[in-house]
């Protein structure tokens, strides 16, 4: 390696803070498009009214500077760090937490983190953020950030299927998860599915899948077909927007897969609400040549 790419922790904090605020007050273009398409497709009056209200909600959010939803989510960061990147001035966790803390105070966003699952004392600033790190080639630091609300997150599921249950078993698990989530997950939902890996990687794959732009088909034709099949079955459930009936129970099904054990077929389902708040930012550090 001839050079390193120096990224400052304070730049990471600034980028995370700006992104956390942005995703909490603006719907993504792919979400807007999917909601508009759903509105055009729905015939039931209540489904149409709800979808129209969700679109109006984002206009009001922008106008009033108020978050789309009072549950401004836990901040979940998936970070890809290039092998030439050197982070200067703090750890990745510290840098992300600082950004989250600032965004919560400045927007303001809701304090939704308790420090202890049983004692349940509110941390007040949504830290610690959830941070996942992947080490890749290159000179960049890419941060994908999601504001994940509790309502949809609570309805997720992990099933350790056996290989014999196969594709049919996968479809069944996903459709049942969305059915059982019903109105609680704030439909129309986006369905993240993680296939393979092991007990902890399948849920990570499911959440990671949720970052894909909904307009993009899965590059593997077999998985693109599986996504379309599951989406059709989920929308045939008739749950509809907010659970009051309709054709749109989900806006998209997004799958990611990984190799797994010969004995296993892990399936994880992670649901996102209709506002599906996420985004990404790329930091290219300052290049510094290494001394010979």
């Amino acid at each position, binding site marked *: 390696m001839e050079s390193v790419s120096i990224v400052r922790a304070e730049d990471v904090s600034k980028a995370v803070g700006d992104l956390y605020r942005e995703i909490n007050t603006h719907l993504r273009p792919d979400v807007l498009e999917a909601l508009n398409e759903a509105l055009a497709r729905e015939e039931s009056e209540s489904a149409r009214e709800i979808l129209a209200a*969700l679109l109006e909600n984002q206009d009001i959010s922008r106008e009033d500077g108020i978050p789309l939803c009072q549950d401004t989510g836990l901040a979940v960061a998936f970070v890809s760090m290039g092998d030439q990147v050197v982070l200067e001035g703090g750890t990745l966790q510290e840098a992300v937490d600082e950004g989250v803390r600032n965004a919560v105070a400045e927007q303001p966003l809701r304090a939704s983190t308790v420090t202890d699952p049983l004692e349940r004392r509110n941390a007040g600033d949504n830290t610690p953020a959830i941070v996942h790190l992947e080490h890749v080639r290159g000179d960049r630091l890419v941060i994908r950030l999601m504001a994940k609300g509790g309502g949809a997150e609570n309805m997720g599921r992990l099933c350790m299927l056996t290989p014999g249950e196969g594709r049919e078993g996968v479809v069944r698990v996903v459709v049942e998860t969305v059915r059982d989530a019903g*109105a609680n997950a704030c439909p129309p939902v986006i369905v993240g599915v993680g296939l393979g890996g092991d007990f902890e990687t399948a849920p990570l794959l499911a959440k990671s899948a949720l970052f894909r732009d909904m307009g993009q088909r899965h590059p593997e034709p077999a998985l693109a077909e599986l996504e379309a099949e599951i989406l059709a079955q989920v929308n045939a459930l*008739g749950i509809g927007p907010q659970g*009051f*009936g309709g054709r749109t129970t989900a806006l998209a099904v997004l799958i990611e897969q990984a190799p797994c054990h010969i004995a296993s077929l892990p399936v994880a389902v992670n649901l996102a609400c209709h506002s599906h708040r996420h985004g990404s930012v790329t930091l290219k550090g300052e290049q510094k040549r290494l001394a010979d």
Partner: protein
Amino acid sequence: MSVRCGDRVLLSGVVFSARDAAHKRMVAALECGEPLPFDPAGQVIYYMGPSPAPPGRVIGAAGPTTSARMDVHAPALYEAGIKATIGKGPRSEAVRRAIVEHEALYLAAIGGAGALLSRCIKEAAVIAYAELGPEAVRRLVVENLPVIVVNDAHGDDLYEKARQGQAGARADEE
């Protein structure tokens, strides 16, 4: 009662916000024979924990949270006189029985429409458990808060009707 399952209603007046932690405390108070932070007779509870109010605003985003988490506590509060609760998502069999027994209501607001619903809130004041932050009990004055009747005193359930494909909401508003 004139309001029925499927009716869309614009609610105006006082409601009290309370969610998980506040429910736990309120039901503990009832069990010890202690008073609640407000007189529950004929009142409405909104399952909601707002985001903080930005400068110049009464409250931040203020949409409903999942009602099912309050199911374990709700029958005692209906028993104590609560006339209606507002949230999102279906209720347990025990809550639905309490609603029939006490001729009460369960109403749904649009989950995730926090900015839109914020505009319907004209006053907000923390009246109890301030240390719970977003989970404190607030007295809210609402104007034309849009809700839909899910469970009524006749035992009807809008989510069940939707599952059976007959969820045509009644058009009349009040």
